[in-house]
């Protein structure tokens, strides 16, 4: 009887429960979609800032540079070079000529040099891609009125020149070649240092010291190190590599001397700091890969009379290597994007020359992004966005390599 009385109540209750279930299900889906949207918005923001209209003003209007009535871009190189000689200082003229003899110049190069050297353009204001497309006509009117001698050009901030040119104070011609090279040098040191030591530590922990007290202590220690904020590693690098090991990291010990690197804030210090930073991650990933090697392989090898090291070298490492590489590539891509520890170690703010050795001053792509983002002028925001695209492309390539490796590996196991 109580069941009959309760039946309607039970049913109405059931409806509410189902409705609540549906509502929350929607909430869960919306949360997930929100997470994905945040990624999409991030990418769109960056692309949006990498292209768009820029209002350029000239110190000497272009119409005044060229002889009356003739548009500047229709002149030939032979006509343009005298204009250049006339308008820049003799020193600057010789400097331009020494960079590349005029005979080898194309018409386009002559034109661009004259515009840049004589006109001295300045990016007054810039607009994002979507704004530029939507309000193109308004922008044209606005610029024509505000900068009568200037012009409105559609600027691709990310272009070949941006990747190949050195750093500059002028956002219109600044590039990230020196930063890319700095990043590559540092990553090379990170790989050379962290890869062998990380694998060796993993082998020691898994093959020699497993289940022992030492293993437990080191393992706990590594897990804790993996959680230490990266900026703390920067402080360690500053105090140890830059300050204590200064003769070594500046290269005095090796007879290398340069005034520019006199204080240990070199590529070597930066590379060693980042190597220490990713070491725990490399060790943990390598351990996982070594653990996954079936024990039967080891036993078969011992059964054939191999020593411990022969077993490890010939059987454990080759089988664990794809897994180790995947983990290492992922940690290298983390090192590629690190900024804070390098700022603390002492990245240089302005490097216009390629690094020539591991004792050079350094800057990296993330450091460039930070410095440009921190500046208030419009155009720096655009080149920061362009540098971000370069950085993300490199990281995506690295990650894709890791995923390919992982897939090939798992296929081989099955």
């Amino acid at each position, binding site marked *: 009887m109580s069941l009959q009385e309760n039946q309607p109540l039970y049913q109405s209750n059931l409806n509410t429960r189902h409705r609540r279930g549906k509502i929350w299900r929607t909430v869960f889906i919306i949360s997930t979609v929100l997470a994905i949207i945040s990624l999409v918005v991030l990418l769109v923001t960056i692309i949006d800032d990498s292209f768009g209209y820029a209002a350029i003003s000239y110190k000497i209007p272009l119409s005044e540079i060229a002889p009356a009535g003739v548009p500047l871009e229709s002149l030939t190189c032979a006509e343009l070079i005298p204009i250049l000689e006339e308008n820049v200082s003799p020193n600057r003229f010789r400097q331009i000529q020494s960079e590349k003899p005029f005979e080898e110049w194309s018409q386009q190069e002559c034109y661009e040099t004259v515009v840049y050297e004589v006109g001295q353009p300045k990016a007054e204001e810039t607009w994002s891609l979507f704004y530029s497309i939507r309000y193109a006509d308004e922008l044209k009117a606005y610029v024509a009125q505000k900068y009568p001698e200037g012009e409105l050009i559609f600027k691709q901030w990310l272009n070949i020149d941006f990747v190949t040119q050195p750093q500059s104070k002028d956002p219109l011609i600044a590039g990230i070649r020196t930063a890319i090279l700095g990043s590559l040098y540092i990553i090379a040191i990170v790989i050379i240092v962290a890869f062998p030591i990380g694998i060796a530590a993993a082998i020691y922990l898994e093959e020699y010291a497993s289940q022992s007290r030492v293993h437990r202590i080191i393992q706990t220690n590594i897990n804790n190190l993996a*959680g230490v904020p990266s900026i703390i590693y920067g402080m360690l690098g500053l105090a140890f590599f830059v300050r204590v090991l200064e003769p070594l990291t500046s290269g005095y010990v090796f007879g290398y001397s340069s005034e520019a690197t006199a204080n240990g804030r070199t590529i070597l210090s930066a590379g060693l700091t980042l190597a220490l930073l990713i070491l725990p991650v490399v060790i943990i990933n390598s351990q996982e890969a070594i653990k996954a090697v079936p024990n039967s392989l080891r036993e078969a090898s011992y059964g054939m009379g191999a020593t411990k*090291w022969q077993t490890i070298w010939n059987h454990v490492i080759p089988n664990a290597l794809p897994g180790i590489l995947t983990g290492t590539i992922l940690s290298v891509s983390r090192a590629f994007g690190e900024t804070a520890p390098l700022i603390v170690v002492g990245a240089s703010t302005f490097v216009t020359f390629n690094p020539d050795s591991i004792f050079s001053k350094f800057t990296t792509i993330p450091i460039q992004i930070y410095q440009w983002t921190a500046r208030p002028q419009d155009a720096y925001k655009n080149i920061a966005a362009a540098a971000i695209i370069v950085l993300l492309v490199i990281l995506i390539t690295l990650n894709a390599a890791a995923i390919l490796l992982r897939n090939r590996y798992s296929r081989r196991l099955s």
Partner: protein
Amino acid sequence: MAEQTTPALPPYSTLRSQKGEASINLRKHLRLKESIIQGFLVFSGALSIFTTVGIVFFLGEEAIQFFRSPDVTLLEFLTGTKWQPHLGEFGVIPLLNATLVTSFIAMLVAIPLGMCVAIYLSEYASPKTRGTIKPILEVIAGIPTVVLGFFALNFMTPLLRGVFGNNVVSIYNMAAGGLVMGILILPLISSMVEDALSAVPRALREGAYALGATKLEVATQIVVPAAISGISAAIILGMSRAVGEAMIVAIAVGAGPNLTWNPFEPAETMTGHIVRISGGDLSYGTIDYNSLFAIALMLFIMTLILNLISQRIIKRFREVYE
């Protein structure tokens, strides 16, 4: 030619003579080589210990120098409400406050969203959907923080200013940094929570279904409570990450210590201060230099405690379900 292409075994007699003659020498040689190699392996394993010792030693040494200087005492450092090095005031409270406010905002975003995403992925999504969404979340976790800082300054700040008004929200503010930091931590929390939820035995879910529970009731009243230790470990680890995060706050939160609870005002976190000061000209042994190490030591201790709690919880949680 034939010998080159097909690997020929040495004749049986050679094999036997090699084995007979050289066996003792060979083994001695190998042992030496193996002990050298083992020495390198032990060194590599011990290097992680040296790293920890190095961090504690250098942070501690410079911090002690800082507290020895006449300008500051430990008590003043921990309780002072003004951080103005040029006036000799070294109170860490404003920096700590900004760290806590930004971390709190980040957790306000990351915990609910991360939980919802994890519950969806673990309990609702089909394996195929899960296979698509998880890599996307991993991509977010892999974005360099300097990029997220750019995003905070050039997207989140204009958005907040558009919503709340330019006179309410400053160009540099704690809210934008905190929100974007939440996006950074979300994938960390969601993936760890999802692991914890998936580890809950099926039998618990099936028992609840058999009693007539709906899917939501199973998820929130059975699975989540059963995985609560894994979830709290994830949240604590997320906090540790938020406290130690540097670039987002260095770019978007501001460049001057400011003791305020208002998330729309600029401030400077502990990490942000270290980045700004060490990015400028910094000479060794000055009180400014030493003060950075005192802040870093405090940061290290905070994150270490959070990480240890998280690891302790994970250990206990593993013992229950293995």
